[in-house]
């Protein structure tokens, strides 16, 4: 049982790394393709979540729990970044709402 548990743990860690890398690639696709700025922000938020998972895995696989704090920090700052970007999108949306000004052509589609 113990041995099986250990093997399962090792296996799931490897699987988890793989899953996260795939998920990472898919998220990056969303980040690059948008189409809306909000989509990109969602993708970024997702990347932060993946990062937390990634650090967690790394922490377990090395047994070095010092890295856990980094994951927590990422949770904190990931939230901060998302709020900031959400605000960015929000403010731009508000601007459009009442000014109907042309938007930065670089963004959006």
């Amino acid at each position, binding site marked *: 049982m113990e041995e099986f548990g250990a093997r399962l743990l090792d296996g799931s860690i490897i699987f988890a790394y793989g899953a996260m890398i795939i998920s990472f690639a898919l998220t990056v696709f969303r980040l690059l393709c948008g189409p809306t700025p909000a989509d990109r922000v969602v993708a970024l938020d997702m990347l932060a979540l993946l990062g937390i998972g990634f650090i967690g895995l790394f922490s377990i696989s090395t047994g070095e729990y*010092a*890295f856990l*704090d980094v994951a927590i*920090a990422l949770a*904190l700052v990931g939230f901060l970044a998302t*709020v900031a970007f959400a*605000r960015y999108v929000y403010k731009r949306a508000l601007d459009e709402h009442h000014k109907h000004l042309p938007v930065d052509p670089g963004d959006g589609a």
Partner: protein
Amino acid sequence: MNSLILRTATPLLAGLMLLFSVYVLLRGHNEPGGGFIGGLIGASAFAIYAIAEGLAAARRALVVQPITIAGTGLLLAALSGVVSILFGDAFLTGQWWFPSFAPDMKYASTVVLFDVGVYLVVVGAIAGIAFALEGRE
């Protein structure tokens, strides 16, 4: 930002972040962390607070101007370095006390004071910069 959800969640989150920041500051001597990282987390807390509640509320929360906090931190760090002259040591030599009345406290030292100074500087300066950016259009 005009969001009930954010504004209601923020005090809790900011409080948590502040607590975590002090925790990170204090255990930095033995585990990853320290004044700088703690300070950044603390500053993030104020940033969130400012985004949610507005600049005025964030300023009220800090009571004094952010730059004063930073100045105090710098002064604290500098003085914690100068103190060693009283003990005949070189500049920035750590002075340690091992108080017997609070054994689990382990020690108090100028080194910790120094790190607290770092923390205050980072919180004050980063918050100051963020506030300045928010405040001026």
